[in-house]
């Protein structure tokens, strides 16, 4: 069998070759191999310069000042640092947090841990369109609410939340607002000032950068109180200790710069590719787009295939690398909690697939994917009921 067609860009993207080149320069013997914290010599200072240049690139991608960017190991760490950090720092002001049922596990499981420690979390349920209404957030706020955590773009459905409205609301009420924007960069505009976001999680590997590096935007004026998770050398303004991985950070900076520069072009191209994919898939009949009516990013298409069992669907389509939900360790046996929160039954959620396109997707690949879907869905329905 030839290599499958990669339509799982929302799980992770390949590194853009232009980004890889910049990283490889760092990894070569003549590269900037110093420790960016070794301020006493050339090697350290050269590495530090690269780190600071990348900090500007990432800051620019979200309309922030460079000193607000804290490097992390990815959005999982950013989410945990934001949520645990705020909760532990502000615990004596209040112990209530507002979030939603369709957040990424990195948010939900951090919140679960806080619940075990005595915090109280309200999980808002989005409508069938996947949208949490700002009004729901307003109603959930209490005098002891210290944090609202709401994602920007959902990783399974591609639904775009109106985080600007939520940010405004939180700012008015003096509640901190954290936004998981792991899926946003290069897909939708992000502006932490305009959106009044206090903490924003990012990761490189959803935007053609390397896995294992991310960042947390932390508003500086007035400062957001945050207790670190990792203590030590005191890097990153004391908020995140650990040796800075120059090549990884350089990769993230380069990736974000490209993502912003090529956003409009990428978005338009992917929207029409996705439309072509959907037209082809729709031909098999009895299929539905999840969260169809919501504003969604242009590269994600989450489809429920009625009358086809999920595991067989996925295996039948193994020539097309897609996924049934988030790429987590639990495997794909459990039905997606995101789709269930949108009102899908377990069966429907299990018979859903997320097709996610990206920068290197081609029309030919989409055509092949359509052909596979048409043949295999037809075949499985045939097996199921003659």
């Amino acid at each position, binding site marked *: 069998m030839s290599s499958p067609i990669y339509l799982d860009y929302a799980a992770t993207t390949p590194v853009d070759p232009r980004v890889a080149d910049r990283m490889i320069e760092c990894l070569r013997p003549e590269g900037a191999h110093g420790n960016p914290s070794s301020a006493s010599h050339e090697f350290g200072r050269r590495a530090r310069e690269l780190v600071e240049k990348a900090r500007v690139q990432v800051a620019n991608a979200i309309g922030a000042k460079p000193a607000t960017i804290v490097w992390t190991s990815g959005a999982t760490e950013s989410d945990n640092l934001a949520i645990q950090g705020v909760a532990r720092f502000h615990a004596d002001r209040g112990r209530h947090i507002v979030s939603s049922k369709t957040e990424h596990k990195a948010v939900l499981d951090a919140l679960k841990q806080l619940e075990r420690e005595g915090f109280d979390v309200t999980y808002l349920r989005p409508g069938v369109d996947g949208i949490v209404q700002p009004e729901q957030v307003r109603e959930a706020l209490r005098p002891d609410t210290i944090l609202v955590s709401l994602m920007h773009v959902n990783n399974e459905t591609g639904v775009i939340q109106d985080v600007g409205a939520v940010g405004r609301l939180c700012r008015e009420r003096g509640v901190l607002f954290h936004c998981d924007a792991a899926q946003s960069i290069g897909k939708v505009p992000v502006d932490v000032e305009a959106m009044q976001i206090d903490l924003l999680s990012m990761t490189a590997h959803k935007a053609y950068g390397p896995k294992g590096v991310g960042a947390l935007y932390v508003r500086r004026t007035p400062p957001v109180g945050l207790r670190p998770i990792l203590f030590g050398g005191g890097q990153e303004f004391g908020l995140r200790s650990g040796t800075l991985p120059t090549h990884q950070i350089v990769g993230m900076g380069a990736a974000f710069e490209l993502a912003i520069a090529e956003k409009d072009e990428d978005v338009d191209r992917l929207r029409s590719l996705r439309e072509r994919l959907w037209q082809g898939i729709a031909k098999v009949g009895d299929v539905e787009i999840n969260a169809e009516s919501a504003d969604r990013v242009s590269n994600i298409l989450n489809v429920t295939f009625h009358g086809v*069992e999920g*595991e*067989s669907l996925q295996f039948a389509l193994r020539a097309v690398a897609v996924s049934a939900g988030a790429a987590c360790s639990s495997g794909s046996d459990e039905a997606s909690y995101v789709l269930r929160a949108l009102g899908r039954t377990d069966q429907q959620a299990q018979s859903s697939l997320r097709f996610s396109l990206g920068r290197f997707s081609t029309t030919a690949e989409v055509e092949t994917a359509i052909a596979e879907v048409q043949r295999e869905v037809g075949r499985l329905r045939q097996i199921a*009921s*003659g």
Partner: protein
Amino acid sequence: MARYSPLVIDHFDRPRNSGRLPAAPDVIEASAGSVAQGTSFHLSARLSGESIMAMQFEAYGCPHCIAAASWTTEHLVGSPIEALARWDWRPVAQALEIPAEKRGRMLILQDAVKCLAEIGLQPP
């Protein structure tokens, strides 16, 4: 996703006896499970004298379920009707290397076969 044995893949990709035998006096049918449960089987068999002359299945379920139904029909065609009554999930599970967590689904298939046996062995 669980990995599948080569035999599961073979039966999943090229199922034997997929379908439903047209209703006829010598055709018996039985089913078990439901789509809501995630697994359902429909079995039909043409009997002649003491023997199973033909058999077809419909299956809604995971690859192991489809493969197990296919393998089962393949092995039962040509057998005496009593083979239906003696059938249980163990040989198919072993042949196809079906993991323990799928046992519940194999029991649904067993229900369908047993039901077919009851009908087939009924005094006419």
